């Protein structure tokens, strides 16, 4: 097995050659057509918006900042512009049942017209009806009816009075009723005089009075009938006159809206109601009508409460629209989604009517597209439930939360539901999508189309050119200076670094835009008129500098010897591991000392982090793999009789990830073989049970972390980092690292197996088993095996006399 060569500088950083580009600055480039690298998402949106089936709503998932919102919105807007404008919707009073306002569908733009027509109609009615009722003709006819009733009464009374008079009996009015009394000389007879009358006369009087009383009673009983008859005649007259006044006004409207039967129906209902309530139009304005109408005071002084009932509440109108609506509801509360019925305080009580129905985002988006942020919908009480219920039922039913939850049962409105045809696009993080699809069965029914946004795109000459166009477009949109070729190339390189992969480009729009804006800032500050590589570099450096407080503090503590890290010499059982810290958006790597101690034991590798619960499960897994590897390689035919302890020195918070497992294994092997490890090297990589080194994340940050420390102490030319060979393609290292490698002052070794690694770290051969199954004398593996055999022997010696066999 040959020595591993350190990587050439070209492998450490995949440059983007400015000469690849034909243009001088991005100002020359056309705008990017379409979207780079999101073919899957775009196809999904195209599919999801084109398929007109229930449940095919969209969930657009991806990390925030990838520009999903803009991409989807732009797409929807383009598509919606060519689609038909949906109907207008109005709510009108239902005269039969005011609790259940009726919904009217109107061709786009006609909602407002109908509302204006209704307002005008009320105005006209309010002058036409009083005019009709003030006419001489009407007054005469009414008087005739009133006189008729009076005549009835009067004739009856007059008759009784006359009959009484003939018999000397007067009809008198008492405070409580009517009395027939015998008279003498035009006056009521005194009781004394009455007593003096002859017996026969008295009896006659009593008889007469009785007869008259009975007649009077009979006519009093009939009086209500006459009055009712009179009232009915008067009502018929009023209706006739009102019908005449109202009919021709409404006829005009009926003609205008003849093509829309529901409107004609509404107009018919208005006509009938006006006729039934014609008195309301006759009352002088001062008289309080609210009690009669039971309606709240309107905001506009245009109409009084009573006349509100004839108005039209336009909840959705598309008079100025072109194409179908694309609505984004920024604050998706329950009410903002499904609409609500507002209330008005009136004399201390809350009341409402159809005029206070307010539309929600679903109404506005009906016939088009509604975009919502998934997290916001989920964090608003009942908004998610309301949205699902509406989508499921296919109609928008406006209910207050109290009603929907049956918490309150006071009389409120039940507006007629409006049929719904909308594509809802939810936007959210991936996690949210996976959680919803796992825990909410309805979610999968209702949001069948996942629009999955990629975070990166494969780097190729074509994609780099598209990327240059993207930079050009962003610069124009943001009104930045144009970027020259060098600047573009540098941005593309940095984008690969953002992706953490030399072969990919990041599609994270926000990070990219930030970088462009900051580079533009530095260019403007320097008074340039293009942004070049220098400015881009400056922006990158400044970003790092701003975020580096913690990194520098780490390094300072190492340099001051508070944190113990060696970068030269050799130690047994001690290796420099590398870890990544990401306190915010900026991640950095730093070395950690990992040590191993071994002694006689029962085959356990004790991970101290795990014992004190400072390690995550992946880290623990990595450590357990180590014992697997050790047992299988060195002690397949005898008990593994060591007890090893592993620790991340000076680590006081949790450790997670298995990227240190190779380092731990090196420390263990060194401790077992008692071979010192070069402290000038640092190690990263996970290991499997076969001793193969596997890829890890954050390779660039880790290398740079160790490089920074060595650089601060002075590069010796010995120093370097062992990385998994499979991570080489991810390398996009900082320029100073690349330069140090170029100068031979720093080395990066791509390692495939533990044997390669241990050879590099110890300077000794690892050793392979020969034909006899033995490791060559003096190799690390040989030393490890010997030590393990010795430990096993010792254990047997200890175990035999006293210990029972069952123990392992």
């Amino acid at each position, binding site marked *: 097995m040959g020595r591993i060569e350190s990587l050439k500088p070209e492998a450490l950083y995949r440059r983007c050659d400015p000469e690849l580009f034909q243009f001088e600055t991005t100002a020359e480039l056309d705008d990017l057509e379409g979207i780079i690298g999101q073919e899957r998402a775009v196809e999904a949106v195209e599919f999801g918006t084109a398929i007109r089936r229930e449940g095919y709503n969209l969930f657009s998932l991806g990390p925030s900042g990838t520009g999903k919102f803009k991409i989807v919105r732009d797409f929807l807007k383009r598509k919606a512009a060519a689609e038909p404008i949906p109907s207008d919707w109005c709510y009108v009073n239902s005269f039969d049942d005011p609790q259940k306002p009726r919904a009217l569908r109107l061709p786009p733009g006609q909602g407002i017209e109908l509302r204006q027509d209704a307002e005008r109609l009320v105005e006209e009615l309010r002058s036409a009806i009083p005019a009709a009722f003030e006419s001489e003709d009407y007054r005469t006819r009414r008087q005739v009816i009133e006189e008729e009733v009076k005549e009835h009464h009067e004739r009856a009374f007059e008759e009784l009075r006359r009959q009484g008079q003939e018999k000397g009996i007067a009809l008198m*009015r008492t405070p409580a009723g009517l009395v027939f009394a015998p008279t003498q000389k035009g006056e009521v007879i005194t009781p004394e005089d009455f007593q003096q009358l002859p017996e026969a006369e008295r009896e006659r009087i009593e008889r007469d009075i009785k007869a008259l009383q009975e007649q009077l009673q009979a006519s*009093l009983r009939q009086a209500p009938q006459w009055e009712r008859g009179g009232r009915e005649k008067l009502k018929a007259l009023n209706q006739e006159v009102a019908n005449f006044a109202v009919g021709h006004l409404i006829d005009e409207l009926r003609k205008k809206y003849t093509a829309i039967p529901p409107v004609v129906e509404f107009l018919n209902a208005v006509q009938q109601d006006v006729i039934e309530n014609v008195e309301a139009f006759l009352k002088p304005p001062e008289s309080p009508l609210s009690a009669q109408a039971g309606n709240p005071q309107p905001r506009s002084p245009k109409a009084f409460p009573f006349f509100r009932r004839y108005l039209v509440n336009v909840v959705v109108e598309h008079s100025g629209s072109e194409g179908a609506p694309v609505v984004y509801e920024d604050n998706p509360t329950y009410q903002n989604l499904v609409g609500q019925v507002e209330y008005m305080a009136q004399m201390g009580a809350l009341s409402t009517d159809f005029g206070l129905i307010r539309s929600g985002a679903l109404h506005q988006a009906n016939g088009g597209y509604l975009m919502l942020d998934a997290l916001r919908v989920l964090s608003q009480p009942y908004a998610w439930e309301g949205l699902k219920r509406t989508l499921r039922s296919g109609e928008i039913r406006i209910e207050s939360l109290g009603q929907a939850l049956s918490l309150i049962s006071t009389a409120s409105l039940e507006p007629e539901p409006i049929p719904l045809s909308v594509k809802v696009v939810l936007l959210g993080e991936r996690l949210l999508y996976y959680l919803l699809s796992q825990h909410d069965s309805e979610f999968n029914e209702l949001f069948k189309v996942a629009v999955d946004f990629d975070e990166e795109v494969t780097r190729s000459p074509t994609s780099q050119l598209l990327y240059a166009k993207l930079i050009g477009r962003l610069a124009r949109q943001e009104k930045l200076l144009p970027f020259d070729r060098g600047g573009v190339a540098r941005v593309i390189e940095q984008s690969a670094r953002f992706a953490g992969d030399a072969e990919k480009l990041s599609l994270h729009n926000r990070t990219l835009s930030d970088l462009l804006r900051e580079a533009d800032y530095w260019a403007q500050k320097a008074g340039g008129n293009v942004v070049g590589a220098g400015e881009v570099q400056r922006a990158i450096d400044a970003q790092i500098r701003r975020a580096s407080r913690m990194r520098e503090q780490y390094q300072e503590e190492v340099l001051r010897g508070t944190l113990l890290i060696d970068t030269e010499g050799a130690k047994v059982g001690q290796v420099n591991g590398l870890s990544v810290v990401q306190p915010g958006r900026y991640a950095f790597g730093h070395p950690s000392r990992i040590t191993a101690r071994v002694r006689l034991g029962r085959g356990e590798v004790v991970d101290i982090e795990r014992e004190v619960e400072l390690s995550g499960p992946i880290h623990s897994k990595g450590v357990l793999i180590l014992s697997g590897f050790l047992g299988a390689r060195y002690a397949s035919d005898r008990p593994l009789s060591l007890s090893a302890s592993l620790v991340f020195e000076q680590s006081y918070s949790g450790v997670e990830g298995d990227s240190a497992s190779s380092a731990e294994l090196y420390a263990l092997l060194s401790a077992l073989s008692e071979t010192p490890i070069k402290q000038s090297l640092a190690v990263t990589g996970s290991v499997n049970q076969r001793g193969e080194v596997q890829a890890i994340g954050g390779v660039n940050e880790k290398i740079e972390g160790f490089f920074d420390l060595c650089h601060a102490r002075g590069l010796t030319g010995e120093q370097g980092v062992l990385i998994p060979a499979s991570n080489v393609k991810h390398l996009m290292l900082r320029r100073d690292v690349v330069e140090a490698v170029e100068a031979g002052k720093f080395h990066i070794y791509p390692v495939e197996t533990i044997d390669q690694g241990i050879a590099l770290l110890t300077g000794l051969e690892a050793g392979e088993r020969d034909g006899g199954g033995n490791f060559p004398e003096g190799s690390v593996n040989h030393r490890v095996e010997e030590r393990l055999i010795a430990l096993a022997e010792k254990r047997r010696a200890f175990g035999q006399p006293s210990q029972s066999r069952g123990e392992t």
Partner: protein
Amino acid sequence: MSEREGRFTLRRILVALDASAHSLAALEAAADLAAAMQAEMEGLFVEDINLIRLASLPCTREVRHTASLASLDLEQMERALKAQAAEARQAMAAAARGARVQWSFRVARGHVAHEVLAAASAADLLTLGKQGRSRNPRARLGSTALRALAGAPVALLLVEHRRVGAHGARFGEAARADTEARRRVLVVADGSEGASRALDAAARLAEASVVTLTVLLLADDSNAARDLELAAAHSLEGRSIEVRWRSLALAKGHNLLRAIQSDETALLVLSFSSPRLPEATVGKLLDHITNPVLLIR
């Protein structure tokens, strides 16, 4: 009423009250006059002796408006009359307080017309509702009003309660009636002695209430009307009032009637005795108009 040197004065107004709507309207009108002329008001409620009597008769039963029969007794009747009197007194007190005039109130027992006319002789003006409670629905004028018209010793103010707000009422009447009744005074001038007294009284009222005076000129032809107008204008000289003149072709009843009806809330001032308006015509006129009418003796 005292008519020293043709001057119309008003110090005491007798208001006959029976708690009916008409009498309450009369009370309002009287209070207006009292306020304008700074007169005092005297309320009179007469307990009808006929009612007291019939309550003691063994043969009488009361027929309620619900068509039920009830027996009568004296005690009950007296209590009911007392309640009405108390109601009348309260109305009196409220009206007088509103007009800021002095007032008194008393209850008498006897024949209504007799008691009222007897009390009137001590006052300058008798105010009556056109009808009382014991109305004869056929006639526009109640029995007491008729008796007063025939034999009141003093000026007489007759007021009708105008039904407003009822089904099919005329628009805005409710709001207008109150204030505008006080706004105008109408008077008929025909050149007679009585008419000039009426004109004098009307002018004083209009001046005191600061309202417009409308003079209806009753003459045979336009020349005569101009003469009438000149004479009337002469008599009104020195008064600070706004006067409107309206010439009518001679008193064919309905012509005058129209002129009055067209201003149906104004106070009409007439003379009891006018050659052109004999008593019978006055009575007929009263049957057909709803204006409050002040008759000057």
